[in-house]
């Protein structure tokens, strides 16, 4: 077992982790920035192709308090308003800072171009052309990180456990994927910036590394999570034909710009039957579109692959070409000609509103444990405004890095043997009650993950019922007891894919249970949590649900929502 020492460990190098490392580096302390993939490439940040919301007011008059109003409205009573105000106020500074760092935001006459997006009251969303926002911001941050000699970057370092003693962070253990050796990391302060969990649903926009590590690491370290039932489903994710080289959520802006029409398997318009209006406007909410598509599929009126058709066939060719720009060529490479054929779309799991519970310093209840980015819960309540996730990564990343580097404690020294004993806990529980079943196709790591994704999609997806949720809890328990606990990864060392899968599964199974249990407890419909058998929103549930792990069991409780107090609201009003 190797041994490393650092002042601050940052887990995950997406937008949040990189921003955190840059902020932490200002303190002059030593920072270790670890990613199980490659720095800046493994998560959602690099994949984002759309927009970033910030009230810079370049396109039309705006103020961050308006952005806050929109965010709170979209969150449907559950926003931690303190976190939401930090998000909206500091988004402006971060976007301008990124501009200083040479992010090539689309501009007109030296002012940033901003567009409208669903739920925003003004044109507020910045972008980098063409569909290049994620790669561009990743490049900027990667460059800034590299300027700091006190940031040690580690690609291929998978953090598997945080070592906590008496509610104080002592360090962590990681797997060096390339060599297969385990590493003990001695550190006071840890920032969890390991992203979201949407990979646990079979239809998703996730990368390989978005199976919920941040939440599982936090739970096992003793931190609390909130609102885990709120998973955002993006209504018209790409489903078929196979489209490679494009982010599956790419259709949205074109649909609105050009009036793309949704059709069911019988080629009939159906959104109207669910109380929405289809066509050239923002009138159909994302929730309604998702709901309508799933119901059509359930009724046997889905498209061949189980979604809906999105058609641009009525749009003149010239209009299509000018709206899509270079994207038309990419579509042609995929044999997609929008003038002749419709494509199939479906709701897909896209973002997680729930997450690690933190205060305004991004601190959890465990001393020395901080969180940032999508891993954090609360700022977006029951539904996130589009464009709010990237600013969240920047703003919370910056704060977490700053406060983590300021944090100090006097702690006992961590030794390699502490690492060895923490690691043996990860692996042994398994070894004890293990009856290894070899060569059984059902008990492959990949097939357990597939089963889990199907359970989550079918029973904990866009439309839930009490029955589907109890069913899912049973099925997940069965996966744990009868499958997961019966496999162990082989002992090979160098780049052991099965070991990586096993570590992913261990976290994803825990996250799935947390999502299901929280969803089961919320006996109402609100925002992204839609219960078919309880289609009403209830005031008694205008509460945050907190979940923690105790002795291996998940426990939940309800807490009052952190609303900004009246006096502050008045002050904000005056500012407008």
């Amino acid at each position, binding site marked *: 077992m190797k041994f490393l020492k650092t002042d601050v460990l940052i887990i995950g190098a997406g937008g949040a982790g990189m921003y955190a490392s840059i902020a932490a580096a200002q303190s002059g302390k030593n920072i270790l920035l670890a990613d199980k993939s490659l720095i800046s490439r493994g998560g959602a940040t690099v994949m984002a192709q759309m927009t970033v919301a910030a009230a810079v007011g370049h396109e039309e008059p705006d103020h961050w308090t308006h952005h806050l109003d929109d965010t709170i409205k979209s969150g449907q009573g559950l926003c931690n308003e303190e976190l939401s105000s930090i998000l909206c106020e500091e988004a402006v500074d971060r976007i301008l800072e990124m501009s200083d760092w040479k992010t090539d935001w689309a501009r007109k006459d030296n002012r940033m171009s901003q567009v409208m997006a669903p739920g925003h009251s003004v044109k507020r969303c910045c972008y980098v052309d063409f569909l290049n926002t994620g790669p561009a911001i990743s490049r900027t941050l990667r460059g800034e990180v590299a300027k700091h000699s006190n940031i040690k970057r580690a690609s291929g370092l998978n953090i598997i456990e945080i070592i906590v003693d008496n509610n104080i962070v002592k360090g962590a253990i990681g797997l060096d994927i390339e060599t297969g050796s385990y590493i003990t990391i001695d550190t006071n302060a840890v920032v969890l910036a390991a992203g979201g969990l949407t990979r646990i649903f079979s239809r998703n926009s996730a990368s390989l590394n978005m199976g919920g590590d941040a939440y599982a690491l936090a739970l096992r370290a003793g931190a609390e999570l909130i609102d885990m039932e709120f998973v955002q489903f993006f209504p018209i994710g790409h489903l078929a034909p*196979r489209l490679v*080289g494009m982010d599956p959520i790419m259709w949205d802006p074109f649909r609105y710009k050009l009036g793309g029409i949704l059709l069911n398997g019988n080629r009939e318009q159906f959104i109207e039957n669910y109380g929405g209006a289809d066509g050239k406007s923002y009138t159909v909410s994302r929730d309604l579109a998702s709901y309508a598509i799933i119901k059509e599929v359930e009724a046997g009126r889905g498209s061949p692959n189980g979604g809906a058709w999105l058609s641009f066939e009525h749009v003149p060719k010239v209009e299509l070409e000018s709206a899509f720009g270079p994207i038309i060529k990419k579509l042609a490479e995929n044999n997609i000609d929008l003038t002749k054929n419709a494509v199939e779309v479906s709701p897909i799991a896209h973002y997680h509103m729930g997450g690690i519970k933190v205060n305004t310093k991004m601190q959890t209840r465990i001393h020395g444990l901080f969180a940032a980015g999508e891993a954090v819960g609360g700022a977006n309540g029951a539904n996130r405004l589009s464009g709010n996730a990237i600013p969240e990564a920047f703003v919370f990343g910056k704060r977490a890095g700053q406060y983590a580097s300021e944090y100090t404690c006097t702690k006992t020294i961590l030794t390699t043997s502490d690492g060895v004993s923490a690691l043996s806990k990860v692996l042994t529980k398994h070894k004890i009650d293990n009856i290894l079943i070899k060569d059984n196709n059902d008990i492959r790591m990949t097939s357990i993950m597939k089963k889990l994704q199907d359970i989550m999609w079918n029973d904990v997806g866009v439309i839930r019922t009490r029955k589907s949720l109890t069913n899912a809890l049973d099925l997940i328990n069965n996966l744990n007891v009868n499958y997961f606990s019966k496999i162990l990864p082989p002992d090979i060392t160098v*780049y052991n894919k099965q070991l990586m899968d096993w570590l992913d599964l261990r976290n994803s199974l825990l996250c799935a249970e947390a999502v299901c249990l929280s969803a089961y407890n919320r006996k109402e419909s609100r925002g992204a949590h839609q219960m078919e058998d309880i289609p009403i929103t209830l005031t008694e549930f205008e509460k945050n649900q907190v979940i923690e792990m105790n002795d291996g069991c998940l426990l939940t409780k309800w807490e009052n929502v952190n609303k900004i107090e009246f006096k502050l609201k008045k002050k904000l009003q005056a500012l407008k």
Partner: protein
Amino acid sequence: MNIFLDNKNTTTLKVFRGTDSNINDFNFFEVPFNDGASILDALNWIRENIDESLAFRYSCINANACKECMVLVNGKTKYSCTTRLSKETTTIEPLSNKRLIRDLVSDIVPPKEKL
């Protein structure tokens, strides 16, 4: 989407295996052939259905954003996620100008990002 739902047709991938680039060890895998499927889709299908130990690198799957999935396809450097499966037998090898780690995984980590 299950991209291999309709798999009447198959094709063959000849895939480099092992941790020693001096030993020419290839496995032949018969995989379903579907219009539009990528080499990465087929490699994942192999892991799910034939041999879970096969090692290759990727993150983003669809967006062609992570740039981690480069391999040699019939001797040419390609992204496995955007290269389509072909009806002819296709040879997949790790990058030849990088140190081999295992199977299709080569050392593409920038020197300053190593432990």
